[in-house]
C-alpha cells in the first residue's frame, strides 16, 4: 500500500497500517537520529517518540505538501534538537568509547585496522564536535540522500543556509582527514 493509503488507515485507528509504516520507515529514521545524537539510548527514545507522533498526528500530514519520509524526518529532527537543548548534551557522545569499540569490531585486518582506527577515530571526533545543524545537514544530504531543497525543508531553513551548513561541515571534516596520521606519514 502507498504511504497515503496507510496514513488514511492510521487516521482511522488501524494498527496494521501503523505497523507497516514502522517497518518501512524505522531504519532510515533510526539511522538519522543516531547520526545526530551519537548514542543508541537517545536514538531509541527519539525513534519511539517519532512513531508515537506519527500515530497521534497522522491527520496533520498533507501529502500535497511533502512526502511522508520528509515529514517523519522533520519530526525526528525537531525531537533531536529539543532533546539536545533540554539536556544540554556535550557535543561528544556520552557513549563515545562505545562508538569507537563498535568501529573497531568491524575491521577484519588487524594491521589495516590500526591505521583505519586512527583515521576513523579522528573523523568521529570531528563529526561529534560539529554543531547539530551541520551534523543534521550532513546526515540528510550525504547519508539519507535527500536533495538540498528537501533537507532544507526538514530543517526548516533556507536552501542557502543548508548549503552553508553542509559546506562548513565538509570543510571541517576534510581538514581532519588531511591532518590524519596516515596522511602525515605519506607526506613525510
Amino acid at each position, binding site marked *: 500500500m502507498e504511504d497515503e493509503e496507510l496514513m488514511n488507515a492510521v487516521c482511522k485507528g488501524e494498527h496494521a497500517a501503523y505497523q507497516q509504516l514502522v517497518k518501512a520507515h524505522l531504519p532510515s529514521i533510526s539511522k538519522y537520529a543516531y547520526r545526530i545524537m551519537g548514542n543508541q539510548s537517545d536514538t531509541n527514545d527519539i525513534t519511539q517518540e517519532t512513531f508515537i507522533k506519527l500515530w497521534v498526528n497522522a491527520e496533520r500530514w498533507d501529502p500535497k505538501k511533502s512526502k511522508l519520509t520528509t515529514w517523519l524526518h522533520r519530526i525526528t529532527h525537531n525531537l533531536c534538537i529539543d532533546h539536545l537543548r533540554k539536556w544540554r548534551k556535550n557535543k561528544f557522545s556520552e557513549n563515545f568509547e562505545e562508538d569507537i569499540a563498535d568501529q573497531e569490531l568491524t575491521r577484519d585486518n588487524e594491521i589495516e585496522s590500526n591505521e583505519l582506527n586512527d583515521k576513523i577515530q579522528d573523523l568521529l571526533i570531528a563529526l561529534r564536535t560539529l554543531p547539530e545543524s551541520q551534523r543534521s545537514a550532513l546526515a540528510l544530504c*550525504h547519508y539519507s540522500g535527500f*536533495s538540498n531543497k528537501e533537507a532544507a525543508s526538514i530543517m526548516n531553513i533556507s536552501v542557502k543556509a543548508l548549503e552553508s551548513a553542509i559546506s562548513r561541515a*565538509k570543510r571541517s571534516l576534510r581538514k581532519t582527514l588531511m591532518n590524519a596520521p596516515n596522511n602525515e606519514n605519506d607526506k613525510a
Partner: protein
Amino acid sequence: MTIEELENIFENCGTNPTRWPANRKAEIERLIALDQQAMKLEQEFRNLEKSLNQLYVPDFSELEQVVLNQNLPPRTDSFFEKFLNWLFPAGNNFKNLWRPAAAACIPLIFGATLGNNFAFGIDISFEENEYWEDQLIILALYDYSEEFFYD
C-alpha cells in the same frame, strides 16, 4: 568554471553526478577530465565520502520490535480536538486565518448580544418631568453675567 566553484559544488552536492546542477554537469566533467587540480579535488572529496560511509551505524532490528510493541495513546478524537484541528490546521496557510479570527470575534458578538437584550438590573428609563427639572437646575447655575465682560 573555476576550481573554487568546483569545490563549492562538491561541498554542496558531493561527487555523485546525479546531484550536480544539470546545467553545469558537462562543464564539471570537462574540468575534471582536463585539470589536474580538479581531479585531485574530486579525489579528496571521494575519500571524504568513502571515510564517512565507513563509519559504523548499529543495526536497529531490536528497536523495531520495541516500537511495534509500545503502548500507543488512544486515537479517539473528541469533538473538541476535531474543532481545534479545524481551527488551527497544519501548515502555514494564510487562507485559513479567517478561522481563528472568527473564533476570536465570538466573545465580542456574545457580549454585544447580551448587552442589547439584558439590562442586568441597570434601569436607564426616566420620567420626562425629572429631565426638565435637571435642565432647569443647569440653566439656573449658568452665569449670564459673563457675557458683559467678554464682548
